[in-house]
């Protein structure tokens, strides 16, 4: 089971990273900049896709997007679980 998840996870993650990156490059500048959180949803998506397996990442992205609207009452600093502290700035 674990092997199956692993073998499927990689290509799916790659596909999603590609899509999100395309969005960030091409559409983000025109549509984006609306995010309530930091890092933004798309950056968060890239972060979790790179650090978690695809299914967990998908769940986390879904959770994040479902909180990112005017009525959620939540906002602010919300890093991807495994990236928040290794980040160098």
């Amino acid at each position: 089971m674990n092997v199956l998840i692993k073998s499927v996870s990689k290509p799916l993650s790659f596909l999603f990273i590609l899509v999100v990156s395309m969005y960030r490059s091409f559409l983000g500048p025109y549509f984006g900049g609306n995010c309530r959180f930091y890092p933004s949803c798309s950056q968060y998506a890239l972060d979790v896709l790179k650090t978690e397996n695809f299914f967990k990442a998908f769940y986390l992205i879904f959770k994040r997007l479902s909180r990112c609207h005017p009525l959620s009452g939540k906002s602010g600093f919300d890093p991807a679980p495994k990236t928040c502290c290794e980040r160098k700035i």
Partner: protein
Amino acid sequence: MNDKPNFFDGRTLGAIAIVFAAWMGWQYYMQKKYPDAFKQTNENTIVENPSAKSDGESADQAPSDTVNVAATPEEPKAVLSGAPAQIESVKESILAFESPTLNFEISSTGMGIRNIHLKKFTDRDGSIIEIGASSLGKQTFETRLLGQTKSLPFELTKVNERTFIGRARWGDLEIVKKIEVVASKYELKTHIQINGTNPNFIGLSTHVYEEINPVQGSSFFAPQMERQEFFIESDGSSDRVHIGKDDESKSFSKASLVSLGSQYFTQAFVNQSEILPEFKVDVIHKTKLAHGTLSYQSLVGGKFDVSYISFLGPKDVEILRSVDSELDNVVDFGFFSWIAKYILWFLKSIYQFVHNWGVAIILLTLSVRLLVLPFNMMSYKSMKVMQVLQPQMKAIREKYKDDQQRMNQEIMGLMKTHKANPLGGCLPMLLQFPIFIALYQVLGHSIELYQAPFAFWIHDLSAKDPYYVLPVLMGITLFVQQKVTPNTMDPAQAKVLAFMPLLFSFFMLSLPSGLTLYMFVNGLAGVAQQMYFLKFNQVATPSISK
């Protein structure tokens, strides 16, 4: 804004370019190397369908003795069980139908119709729109005995201006086909009844034909808008079969609604019988024919009594809906069709007041922009605040590098004190995309825009801009918008983005000018909005920054 290496760095871009080039090269190579692979499939089709050349018809699977019986009804008035004769010898008789909207001829061959002219519409060259496949010698809506390749010869009578009855005999069997034309709705109410019995009778088929357009190629930079397709609603699901460069052969059982048409005009059947027909789709490039077969099988013991509505006209949502509540589904508004229908309704409402589709598009664009303006404004404000706070956040992260919890708290605190909690969000923004996609579909597929003039040099909003003014203007607005939008991207990303206006303009060159008008106005509104924000912001910044 972020420190992680971006996905779109130079190397990745290079890799993508190489993969893309390799793929294109591979396609080209395959076509050069195995040109007979394509040829072979064509030849196979011909072998399977020996009658294809003369008939443009799919293979006849009927046993030979049935064919002989089929040849019996040599003349409509001939003896009931005459000797076998050649069906070709039957003289064709023709009745004409004329109306302000629709002209056609009813042929005694299968009581099919041909030389169909939609008089209210003209094509790009100014000649009246003709549908069907008359030039290939085909009568659309012609009726045959199931399992045979020749159409039934009918004896035609004109009951009144809009009602026609055809009678055909096959042994002791009489087939009565009645067509009642409702020209204003482009509708042919058809009823087929069987009198008498014949043990060989298994059912009837009615056929629909369309000539395949010669140009079906499309690419990323020149999307083909005038494509042809079959639409089939059968057994609870709906399918589209696009007519591409390959031959097709597919069957659908329990069909309730089928159509064969192009972007703006279509022929369709709506079943109204208890017997649910089977629909077979055949695309044969050798004969230039797209051919649909609607087959009604006779039920054991039941009376064969079939009615359906044939439609041949424009894909105007209101007309289609007036014929049948489901018929407007033949218009392909894509995945977000339910949104598209509301957008079209809104566009039509505006048109009622302004009587110019171009102006209606502009007003629609501005309405959509106005709708999302509050979100844009809020997000712009919070983005500015975040930009201002960036150095402070950096400092906090440096300071609490080893204490994650503390860092989170500090950053949250910082954001709270500066009210950097935006009122917008990503979800509303994501919800915008379906609207944009639906709008694109509406502008690309609505007959309302077909040959609708706007102003100046644009005489047809569904055709490309003849002088490419709008695509170029749109590219310029995109470029300006990029310049006035604060850039938070890394250099590689910015480089990619610098090509976007050019790419977009190029992409838009051959698209309908209604679409480019929309893109241009949208871009212009975006620039105006951005300029306003920038001006507004210069006043507001001092109060935000410490």
